């Protein structure tokens, strides 16, 4: 594998992607939509239909981004994340996960995010938006769909109980504003324009929210996760 560490120009570099989904037709559809490498810069290097397959394919190919379905035979997307933990936190060329799900259930979505996925998009996403999301995740950024933004606002909004960790268990006013605009369907660029901040700043807010989501002690999150045996 090439060991170039520059991630600044993803369009020139291209992104190597593994598709994990138990529906073959869906995999074929996504591959057809994003796999035209010359146009999109995305190269699909592997596919998997269940957890065991996924773990071995990911280990063998070391892709930049894994498009991960939430519901999978053998333990679901969370199990894939758990078993690829060392790849997720590899110091160089970490494997990033982007959850791509049809599920509406908050606990499914929050579960994979807490498991370490860098973002969550629904399967109704258009091909070009998906390519955008893939490159954003490949660059270490977070990707929030409007629905995920809504879930996160919901989870952090109900604050009857005192937060365990003040810094983590609370969203700043700015982070809330950013999330709210994303939930309303604004693109990052539009969010920046609306709040008079740069796209980079929007990205850093979103990343901060993702970090809080993954590390937070919020009891709702923990309850969601434990109820489904996710942690």
């Amino acid at each position, binding site marked *: 594998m090439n060991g170039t560490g520059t991630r600044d120009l993803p369009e020139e570099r291209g992104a190597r992607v593994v598709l994990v989904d138990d529906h073959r037709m869906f995999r074929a559809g996504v591959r057809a939509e994003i796999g035209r490498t010359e146009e999109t810069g995305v190269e699909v290097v592997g596919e998997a239909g269940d957890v065991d397959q996924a773990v071995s394919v990911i280990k063998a190919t070391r892709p930049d981004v894994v498009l991960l379905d939430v519901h999978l035979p053998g333990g679901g997307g969370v199990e894939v994340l758990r078993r690829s933990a060392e790849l997720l936190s590899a110091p160089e060329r970490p494997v990033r996960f982007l959850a791509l799900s049809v599920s509406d259930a908050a606990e499914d979505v929050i579960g994979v995010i807490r498991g370490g996925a860098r973002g969550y998009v629904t399967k109704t996403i258009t091909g070009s938006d998906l390519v955008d999301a893939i490159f954003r995740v490949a660059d270490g950024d977070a990707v929030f769909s409007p629905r995920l933004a*809504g879930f996160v606002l919901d989870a952090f*909004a109900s604050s009857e109980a005192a937060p365990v960790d003040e810094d983590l268990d609370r969203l700043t006013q700015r982070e809330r504003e950013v999330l709210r605009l994303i939930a309303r369907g604004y693109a990052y660029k539009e969010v920046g324009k609306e709040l008079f901040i740069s796209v980079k700043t929007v990205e850093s807010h979103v990343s901060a929210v993702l970090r809080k989501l993954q590390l937070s002690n919020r009891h709702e999150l923990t309850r969601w996760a434990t109820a489904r045996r996710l942690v």
Partner: protein
Amino acid sequence: MTTATPAAGAAPDEAPARKLYRSAEGRWLGGVAQGMAGHLALPVSWVRIVFFVLILANGLGVLLYAIFWFVVPLGAPRTTAAAPAGPPLRRRLLRRPHKRRLFAFLVLACALGVLGTNVQFPISGGYLWPLLIIGVGAAVVWRQADNSRRAHWAAATRDSRWLPLLRSAAGAVLVCLGVGTFVIGQHPAEATQSLSLVFQAAVAVVVGIALLAGPYLVRIVQDLSEERTMRIRAQERAEVAAHIHDSVLHTLTLIQRNAESPREVARLARAQERDLRAWLYKPAERSGPTEEEDKPAGLAESVRATAAEVEDHHGVPIEVVCVGDCPLDERLAAQLQAAREAMVNAAKYGDERGPVRVFAEVEGRTVFVSVRDRGPGFDPDAVPADRMGVRESIVGRMRRNGGSARVRSIPGEGTEVELTMERAE
């Protein structure tokens, strides 16, 4: 002593609901200790030691063991996954269980014997020995019941057919012998005692029969309840299949018929998707009591319903994100009407560039709804005065009810309607 412990205890872990089963693998007597060890994730030796210690405590261990043996069903043998022992080791081990069982029976007999001699109230020899014989016979019968059940599961590939029968018979003979001795062994000393004697004998015979038939009855009852859960599961599956059949196949047929009109196809597919989605994910999402269908729906539910209605009517996808929820009141109903109007406008004039997005948030007393499309947009100031749609049914309605509306439209970038309302007390 307790070195070879097959991993049968790990198997129940995979069962959805962890239930206590006795283990047929590596058991000494009834598999109670083995099963409990697996259930509690403790070494078997610990459990056995506890039972030994409890035996010393006035024979409590024997009693407990008997109760567990009686009540707890034998676990289904899921040994295909967990049988790591190699062939040579296995052959050696094959001899050991018999020794162990003998040992366990000896311990049991000793415990019963010691118990018999130590019991405070006097038991004459005429009672003790029949009782012991009955106990051993009952143990054999109960064990045999387990074995026949196991054979029933494991497709019964046993080398000898008469051995289990013989064991059952031996157990039965022992019980009968015990009961017989009990009945006959009483000395008919006085005529006045004859009535109580008959009574005792009758009780003894009834107990003996119960001991003989008990295990089979208990197993039958357990089998029945198992079968019932299976039937419920099958029923659930049938319900899912029926639902998918009814709605999904129906929709697919309609889509085939309307293949020339993409709008109709999209409408059908969206409606079906929403329906199936609600059916699949709603029960998990709802946490409160949802039995009362007549109860007025909350804001989030109403927004979703309104969006679904508009979506069906105009064939344009609408994505709804709701944060928080609150009960509907009069003002919010007005806001919902305004939102509906905005959605209809977005569906009519919005472009095909992405879905209409609806966002509803309850934050404290403030309820905020935004409806956004990616259509061509328009200049709000350039709308002729006679066009009442936006001005009256959205802005005016909000103002009349104490809220505010803001229409933001940039030509070429779409339109967003923001509705803000304070909740009434």
